[in-house]
């Protein structure tokens, strides 16, 4: 799975928009959306929200957690804790990135939020690296990772498993099962 796919999944997350047009319910395979009343908040998936925003058909309402104070608290908590803390949304990075890229004018203190999310992300990735490192060093057979989001798993998951495979191969090759086979050449 690559990050684009993760982002695609994230686009199904519901966000609140305030449309500036009037439209009846729209019926889609994924479910009914709307009705859209000008000035009245309505929940739509992120992909639609961004599409409407790009056409200047709506204003985005930032999710509740996208607030400097809350994020600061979250960041501090994340730094304090040894393990991963639960995130406000399973797609917090993707949502932040997409919303801030397309609708930063509707989000107060967009830059601060971007920095905060980046901080949280860095902290978590660092934690992940450290724990992966320890995992490899101590040659553990299993580890438990709670509260990781899909994007985070995606950054190191594939790589880590591959690495472990390789290492396993290397390690098993270290103990010569077939004697000095290589010496034959």
């Amino acid at each position, binding site marked *: 799975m690559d990050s684009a796919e993760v982002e695609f999944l994230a686009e199904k997350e519901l966000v609140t928009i*305030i449309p*500036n*047009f*009037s439209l009846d319910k729209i019926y889609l395979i994924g479910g009914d959306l709307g009705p859209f009343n000008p*000035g*009245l*908040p309505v929940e739509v998936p992120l992909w639609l929200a961004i599409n409407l925003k790009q056409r*200047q*058909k709506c204003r985005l*309402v930032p999710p509740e957690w996208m607030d400097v104070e809350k994020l600061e608290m979250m960041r501090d908590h994340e730094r304090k804790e040894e393990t991963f803390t639960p995130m406000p949304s399973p797609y917090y990075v993707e949502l932040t990135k997409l919303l801030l890229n397309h609708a930063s004018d509707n989000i107060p203190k967009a830059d601060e939020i971007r920095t905060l999310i980046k901080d949280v992300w860095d902290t978590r990735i660092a934690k992940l690296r450290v724990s992966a490192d320890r995992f490899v060093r101590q040659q553990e057979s299993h580890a438990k990772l709670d509260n990781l989001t899909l994007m985070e798993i995606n950054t190191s998951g594939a790589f880590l498993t591959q690495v472990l495979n390789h290492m396993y191969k290397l390690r098993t090759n270290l103990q010569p099962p077939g004697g000095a086979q290589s010496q034959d050449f």
Partner: protein
Amino acid sequence: MPATQKPMRYGHTEGHTDVCFDDSGRILRVHGEKNGKLVTAVSNNTIQVHTFPEGVPDGILTRFTTNANHVIFNGDGTKIAAGSSDFLVKVVDVMDCSQQKMFRGHDAPVLSLSFDPKDIFLASASCDGSVKVWQISDQTCAVSWPLLQKCNDVINATSICRLAWQPRSGKTLNIVTWSPCGQYLAAGSINGLIIVWNVETKDCMESRVEKDYSDLFDGDDRSNAGDFLNDNAVEMRSFSKGIINDEEDDDDLMLASDVTMLKNSSSLLKEEEEDDQAGGIQNLPLLTSQKPFYNGPMPTPRQKPFQSGSTPLHLTHRFMVWNSIGIIRCYNDEQDNAIDVEFHDTSIHHATHLSNTLNYTVADLSHEAILLACESTDELASKLHCLHFSSWDSSKEWIVDMPQNEDIEAICLGQGWAAAATSTLLLRLFTIGGVQKEVFSLPGPVVSMAGHGEQLVIIYHRGTGFDGDQCLGAQLLELGKKKKQILHGDPLPLTRKSYLVWVGFSAEGKINSFIKIKDIFSRRKLFHYFNCTPCYVDSEGIVRMLNRGLGNTWTPICNTREHCKGKSDHYWVVGIHEKPQQLRCIPCKGSRFPPTLPRPAIAVLSFKLPYCQTATEKGQMEEQYWRSVMFHNYLDYLAKNGYAYEESTKNQAIKEQQELLMKMLALSCKLEREFRCVELANLMTQNAVNLAIKYASRSRRLILAQRLSELAVEKAAELAATQAEEEEEEEEDFRKKLNAGYSNTATEWSQPRLGNQAEEDTEDSGEADDIEEKPETHNHGQNSFFKNANSSDVLAIKSGAVTSSNQGRINPFKASAASFFQKGASKADKTEEVKEENSENSSSETPPVCPQNTENQRPKTGFQMWLEENRSNILSDNPDFSDEADIIKEGMVRFRVLSTEERKAWAAKAKGETVSDGAEAKKRKRVVDRSRETENQTEKAKENLNLPKKQKPLDLSTNQKLSAFAFKQE
């Protein structure tokens, strides 16, 4: 030199000092001016000297660790004293800043200082609530009085607490000021009382109550209340005899103190100086005697006029309007004085930015125009400015000046008109293009107005309220073709001790769903938020709506405070919608209104009528039922005013209501409340009553079923009576049409209740045929509803009977009930017909139609036809049968014995008869013969009655559905 470039707001006599806060309240500047020097205390915690008037910095006198709050010169200008938020007081020599004296002893920021004229003492007041007098020479505290209210910071101090010494003898007073000549003493109290005494004679020179503050500022959110009433700026007058109150001139802080402080300070006087002193003390009784002694209810200050959906005027960034169309914001700060208009629906108009040079204070917004108004200034008259953006010509704005001394206080926009209420109690109407229309007098000072469509609601002061109540009245006018007043200044009910915060019309959520029939003719495209029911909100958060169904009373529909989490949280209402039942408002944490930034988000609340015991199922259903009734009142209003509306809405509402009634009936049945069941059935339509009968008989409540069937018969009779009346009227109408030579097509014959009005319109406007078709279908829809209400009920009786026999239940009582019903129905039919005939006779003088016609009417079902034929058989077999019910019972049994084919044949026969009847009628219709016309008409009427039969399958299915649900309750 930012400090000196700010305009000083007051001119002072020499050596006086003053404090002024800048906007943020964070930086504080204290100015003292003496002997060509200006001393400022600026926010970098220093006291700086400047030359005056050049304003060039001339060195720093002293520093504090925080802001200095007050700086003063002594009498000869050689020293300054400065008090700071770091609890210190310093006395510094102006010429030599190394000569400093520090006074420690206050436990909170120092508020204010005062040198005594002889330079022996220094008085200081502090936030710790004490006033201390220091000996300057040895820096000791001579005396300390705990006089003031304690607070934690200068900003929070209720009083700036300026001190003053009598110029000659040197006495300290707290809230009182000495006149420069030392002869007079002025005191201001927090309730606005200002008294001036002559010190020598101990006489009260003058006293005056400027404003009653204590009444304004009780309650939890004082500042808001104050904001709203806009009364916190007291106008100070300079008194005669050269007395200047330079204490009370700061808007931001309240007046000095209250009477108890005066007492303290006067006792203080006594302590300090014996000679010539009694002045203050003996003046005290005078003071109390000046206050009128009255313990009864106090009049409430009248609330100021306001625009719905606006935030207080004194804010630099405020909402002028937030309504269902858009938002108007006003910025009034140093760089900019501008108005921003934004539309929720950008297809109405794009966002606009206007410069606000005329200082507009009130605004309204509709889908046609932006209306702005400003108050008069010294040079300029009060103006009404309209930006009519939907105009099709190129000039899109107009301005009207009000006559002299007339200020616009409230404005509103409707469809095609604008209104302005002025300070001279006039209401001026304009067209949207700027033509002046009616002018009329208002019964009282306007509070607020709202307009939408053709309706205008004006809220005004009917009189003076007492004990915190407002005394408001409401006028509701319709400004359409037929102008009329609906509410004639009736009292507006408000929660106790509250004031009005919002008034407006409920809006139906969809654009274009209500189009006036006439507008189809003119083919005008309409953006139409149809608004019809006036609503208002008071400061306690109760939303009330006009209940047109109950003689224009006001019903509370929501309590926004119930939804609030905190005590000081409020909901700021921006709109009310009836169709999706929504109350749109903005949640405000800890205030009554939202700030412009960050942009507030709308929340949607649901309505809840204040019914009792809504925790129980019964209470809940009652609330739901009446809410549904309440929120569909507007449909009746629409129908009455010739608006087309979606019939499905109405049907849905009726269905919902009947369902609720049915549920309530089932519940009462379960609770053995049969009387209540009958009461509920009274509210039902004929159709639902049938179901109720069925329900009752199935749950073996025979008495109830009987009662209900009696009720059903009564209802049918009533219905028939009203229907007949209606028909009579329409007949008349119709005849007139005939005489006018209007050619009638077959459909029009059969639908005499088609909107005559519409036809008239078509004729009048001479529109082409294709247009004529449209209203026809429209009318048809509207009309068929009209009729359904009547005919479907008649039909319902029949269908009820039919279903009961078809379902083949062997419940003798039920069968009899059904037939009983049937009788009632046919009776009703008969009376109806007789009436019709009567009306015909009177109008066309034709011989009465033969009674055979009515006879033909009766057999409607196969079973009945069969019964007619076999009645004699039954009677002969059972000679003891005298009761009709018994005969029917027996007949049922026999009929059931018949094979299905036979039964079908009978049913077909019954149907066939009606069909042939109809066909016959059609054939005959072509005949124009006058003598046969009447006959024709009766046939027609008959057809009308038969007509519903064709809809039977549909009706039957809904019936079954309803009954299925009813039985689910069992």
